[in-house]
């Protein structure tokens, strides 16, 4: 079974780390990831940019584009896509297409990636 492990923490705190502190945190995490990668058990790893870089697309007849991260608490995270786009507008178009194709309500939050490693899972 594949498991997704999602990271949650206070952005105010992580945003207050100095470059050295940030590097130290990442270095420690890399030790854990390295072992998983060697066992061919590590899939894609992504670090997101801060929520200040987030845009939300609310699904509906007419999709609504909002600045900022997804803020509702009534809905739950169901999944995610990683898509290469030339610009934010292109990413919004992809989200709108996905929205039209899905029959449900809900939203997409678009967050640029700060770091992406495709991982080493055997296909």
């Amino acid at each position, binding site marked *: 079974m594949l498991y997704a492990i999602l990271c949650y923490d206070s952005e*105010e705190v992580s945003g207050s780390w100095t470059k050295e502190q940030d590097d130290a945190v990442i270095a420690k995490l890399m030790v854990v990831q390295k072992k998983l990668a060697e066992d061919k058990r590590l899939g894609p790893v992504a670090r997101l940019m801060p929520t200040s870089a987030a845009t939300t697309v609310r699904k509906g007849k007419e999709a609504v584009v909002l600045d*900022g991260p997804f803020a509702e608490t009534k809905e739950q995270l169901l999944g995610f896509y990683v898509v290469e786009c030339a610009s934010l507008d292109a990413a919004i178009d992809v989200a709108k297409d996905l929205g039209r194709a899905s029959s449900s309500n809900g939203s997409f939050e678009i967050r640029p990636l700060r770091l992406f490693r495709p991982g080493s899972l055997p296909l």
Partner: protein
Amino acid sequence: MTCVAWIDAALRGARPQAVGALLRHFKDLDLAEEAFQVASLRALKAWPEKGPPRDPAAWLVFVGRNAALDVVRRRRKEAALPDEAVLSDLGDAEAAVVEHIDDAPYRDDILRLLFICCHPDLPATQQLALALRIVCGLTVPQIARAFLVSDTAMEQRITRAKARVAGADVPFEAPSPAERADRLGAVATSLYLMFNEGYAATGGAAHVKAPLCDEAIRLARLLVRVFPGEPETLGLAALMLFQHARTPARLDAQGAIVLLEDQDRSMWSRDLVDEGTALLDKAVRHRSAGPYQVQAAIAATHARAARWEDTDWEGIERLYAALERLTPSPVVTLNRAVAVLEVRGPEAALAMVEPLAKQLGGYFYFFGVRGALLQRLGRAEEARASFDRAIALANTPAEAAHIRMQLDRLSKVPRARAPGR
């Protein structure tokens, strides 16, 4: 990361929100600050034992409010205090904190706190000192070092600033949209000043002033988070990120300025450029251009070019023309002339620069640019005179040193153009 380092980061991160909320409750900057200090001390004791709270800011507001009540009671014994009515709903602190977490008045708390510190009645140096002390929590000696003054002088500056804003009438009700826009504008100006104060430093000062850039960016990101739909706030944050990305490349080992054209762009921070690009993309979608967005777009154009020779100068000239329309100023025209030099050559650029002589007659950079243009046109004597004037007007040794370098190049020109080279 050690536990103490984590707590320190958590306290720094929660500070604007917590002090902003405490200020709303107590309507007194000193009391809010003191309450936060006491709460921070308690956090240092309590958090390692019990683990960090889910919401550090809410914890600090709750503990800080109770602590400040003690301070109020203590002060009451020492001196007559304002009416109980001045302090808002002190009885039901916990309920108010719950409301504070669920609701979003903290947006305006943060803005009010920043606005008070960046109050237009204060001179710029006092604004920055007060914001760094109250909002960012830098110590007085840290701030004093950044402004190259003694601790005592900085202490006095901050005290004066506090006294002045205590007299300035800032309403504590939620601001109207127009007031909010005014406050955001004033705060943005101060944050950019703070950034530039750090960025313009050279030599030994560069090191002690670097935190000013980090703090300005941290506050700009915070503003974007709490007011997500403001294109100029996004533009300001993007502009700072693009400029800060160049920091590793813009000073040499001696602390002298390395010109944009000579910088090793592989040293630019990719992370910061990417974040700036993401924020500028968001801003542009609003189709409401403003000076910060245009300046960020200029910086983004530079960031897109792998080398100086790859720069899209026509794009940059168009952007400077747009900036001229938004904020007409001879300095903007001077910058536009530099782009014109690359697009249409030195003659066209000089024609644009010469009419500015009257307005910019006391401006170091004007004579630097003019000298460089004359040099390109082979008018060496006039170029030398212009560079001499620039040195006389230089504000810092680094600026003067930079022009002397240009003068050195000038004397090398004949050799560089010798046949066979």
